[in-house]
């Protein structure tokens, strides 16, 4: 039995159901259920987040100047970007401006997070969806060396290097108690790389692990410490003292030079390792162009990285700003975060309660009242759901829509908006990459396209870091060392009531915070995070969200081993609440699969 969604997908839930559920006792995870037809092609997709994120219950009554420290704790990966969004929201509400240097430093920190997160996401989460670790053991080190040298001038590419790595890897695999990577679907038919490409990718997995720790040093310099750098309403928390010899907290010439050298190495790593790897992997997966979902229809990017301090207009933002609807690349629509008719969150299929659930609420008026009700067709019990009923409420993720439209956010959305605007720095690299792997423009709208867009953006971001570092250095040389504006630091200088919003482009997509301030205390605070956009359930009109749309029509080689589902969901770099440091004795299996 099929139904047509208003946003153009044909759903059919008559076939067998596959449930992919992370099995841990901690909340904060994603569950996916799909129905397959007789050819094992996905014909219905249901994504349910089990996170519960009512940050306003924690923030109400606190000092707005401290909100960044709380929101930074929501997530271990997006710490800095939540903090930045928060200080922007408070500044917007109170009319506080920041100095030019603070803008440059914030941009460098935000770009640094993009570079860091994209590299770690690709190598340490997503690569294993394309790369078969075990197959690497069968590679010929000489042939691997030839392959590596044919795609890049990166020096770590000798036969001896790969041979040594293979020995290390074998030893590691054999060390019984470690059992590394044992949770993979190794040998799955959906893996397409030859052993040599797998071995090369494993080498870069390790090199990336080593490299990523250098990148974050930038946060330690400008944020005073890492992890958990300091942020400040009105600017940045670091003072600049070029003549200083390393007084605690002050940034001197030596620190500035350290940042410059890390930026240079970042550009080198992205251009000589990350991008060539993505091109090489893509060339073996040219016939696996599933996973496009909403990307070919409706995408959104708030934009970020303002060229000019305090100017968050589309013209000033270097990451593109706008919405594309229904695949119409000729028109990019502007976004107003303060317009109550534009961004709204619905809860018709989410586990919350509104007075009228046919309507959405703008985040300034947002409420987060839990309401754990299950649909009549649910199988199992309230504490052990075997099969969700997507006809009822089925997710802790709210359902944000832009003027009623489900949109995809993230690197691919940003790339498409920039492309549609004809911006050369987004259009040319995308065209070039498609040409190199010999794929048409339409191939961009896929899981592979999302992965490639992230790599291209990483390169862009690394160069932008260099741009803003130069800008900062020039400003300092000209004698301007201001990094904070404290004119309106004191609550006595604030209006009795105020409201505002702040937005950024987190690595995984559009992020915004809305704040209401009353008598110098937080009265309401709402975060709409990228994974809320992408992972949202159906809205009251039946539109499916980006995760659900992306799984549609994908064939599965083996329903018991849902590699294809993980591959596509991972390509969004989903962010779920981070609370998973709880250790168990034998390492919990991180996902269970049930075929029903």
């Amino acid at each position, binding site marked *: 039995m099929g139904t047509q969604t208003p946003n153009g997908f044909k759903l059919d839930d008559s076939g067998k159901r596959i449930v992919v559920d992370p099995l841990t006792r901690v909340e904060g995870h994603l569950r996916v259920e799909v129905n397959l037809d007789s050819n094992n092609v996905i014909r219905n997709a249901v994504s349910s987040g089990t996170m519960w994120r009512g940050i306003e219950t924690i923030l109400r009554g606190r000092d707005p100047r401290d909100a960044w420290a709380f929101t930074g704790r929501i997530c271990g990966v997006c*710490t800095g970007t939540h903090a930045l969004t928060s200080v922007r929201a408070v500044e917007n509400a109170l009319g506080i401006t920041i100095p030019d240097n603070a803008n440059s430093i914030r941009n460098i920190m935000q770009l640094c997070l993009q570079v860091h997160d994209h590299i770690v996401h690709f190598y340490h989460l997503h690569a*294993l969806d394309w790369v078969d670790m075990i197959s690497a053991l069968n590679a010929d080190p000489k042939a691997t060396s030839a392959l590596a040298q044919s795609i890049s001038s990166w020096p770590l590419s000798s036969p001896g290097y790969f041979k040594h790595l293979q020995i290390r890897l074998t030893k590691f695999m054999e060390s019984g108690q*470690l059992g590394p990577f044992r949770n993979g*679907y190794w040998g799955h038919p959906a893996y397409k790389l030859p052993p040599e490409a797998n071995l090369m990718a494993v080498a870069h997995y390790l090199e990336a692990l080593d490299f990523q720790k250098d990148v974050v040093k930038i946060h330690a310099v400008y944020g005073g410490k890492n992890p958990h750098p300091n942020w400040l309403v009105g600017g940045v928390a670091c003072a600049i003292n070029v003549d200083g010899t390393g007084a605690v907290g002050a940034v001197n010439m030596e620190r500035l030079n350290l940042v410059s050298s890390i930026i240079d190495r970042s550009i080198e790593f992205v251009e000589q390792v990350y991008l060539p790897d993505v091109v090489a992997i893509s060339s073996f997966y040219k016939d696996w162009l599933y996973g496009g979902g909403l990307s070919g229809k409706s995408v959104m990017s708030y934009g970020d990285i303002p060229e000019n301090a305090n100017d968050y207009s589309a013209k000033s933002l270097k990451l593109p700003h706008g919405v594309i609807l229904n695949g119409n690349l000729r028109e990019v629509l502007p976004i107003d975060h303060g317009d109550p008719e534009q961004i709204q969150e619905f809860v018709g299929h989410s586990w919350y309660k509104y007075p009228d659930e046919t309507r959405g609420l703008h985040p300034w008026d947002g409420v987060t009242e839990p309401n754990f009700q299950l649909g009549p067709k649910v199988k199992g019990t309230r504490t052990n759901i075997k099969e969700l009923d997507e006809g009822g409420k089925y997710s802790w993720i709210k359902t944000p829509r832009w003027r009623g439209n489900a949109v995809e956010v993230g690197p691919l959305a940003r790339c498409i908006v920039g492309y549609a605007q004809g911006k050369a720095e987004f259009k040319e690299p995308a065209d070039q990459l498609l040409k190199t792997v010999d794929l048409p423009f339409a191939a961009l709208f896929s899981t592979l396209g999302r992965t490639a867009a992230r790599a291209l953006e990483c390169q862009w971001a690394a160069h932008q870091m260099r741009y803003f570092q130069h800008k900062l250095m020039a400003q300092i040389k000209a004698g301007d060392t201001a990094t904070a504006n404290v004119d309106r630091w004191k609550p006595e200088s604030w209006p009795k009531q105020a409201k505002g919003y702040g937005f950024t482009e987190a690595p995984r997509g559009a992020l915004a915070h809305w704040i209401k301030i009353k008598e110098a205390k937080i009265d309401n605070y709402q975060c709409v995070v990228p994974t809320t956009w992408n992972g949202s359930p159906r809205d009251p009109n039946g539109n499916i969200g980006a995760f659900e749309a992306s799984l549609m029509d994908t064939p599965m080689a083996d329903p018991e081993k849902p590699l294809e589902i993980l591959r596509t969901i*991972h390509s969004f770099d989903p962010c779920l609440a*981070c609370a*998973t*440091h*709880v250790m*168990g004795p034998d390492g919990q299996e991180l996902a269970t699969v049930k075929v029903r």
Partner: protein
Amino acid sequence: MQILTPENTKRILVLGIGNILWADEGFGVRAVEQFHHHYAVPNNVTILDGGTQGLYLVNFLEEADCLIVFDAIDYGLAPGHLKLVRDDEVPKFTGAKKMSLHQTGFQEVLSAADLLGRCPRELALIGCQPLDLEDWGGPLTAPVRTQIAPAIELACKLLAHWGSPAKQRTVPLPERERLLANDIDHANYEARGRPI
């Protein structure tokens, strides 16, 4: 200048991990916060609030010979049970089936350090079985909170054993040097939490 003897040249990391916004998930961070509040350590010992940083902590591990980590653990024990896990007993593994990078457990951080050949030689996990991990914005529960002091005592014993004893502070720690600030320190976080 201090002359270093072989014992105190060991680089030691005392780490607390977890999410403070999530009730007993915050045990590790609150334990290391309180340890830092009450004790001073020699220069070869680093005290770190790791939050939920996952893989991003690997470089701190690489620089340590000995590691003490405070964390909430799930060993199926009674809530509030404190357990010391040593060396090879500390779980290390990497999973590829997780849904997101945000699901990286500390076991993966250890595994990654190991894969790089630079895992601390001596590991001590001071874990506490949580009562409630699902109370978003909630405080530590009583059985877990009462284990902070015994957990710190265990850490002190290990540090003494490694030749780098912690000393109780005689001068109170100035506010600006506290590990967690901006109202997310334990006392303020819970004092101004939502009405219970």
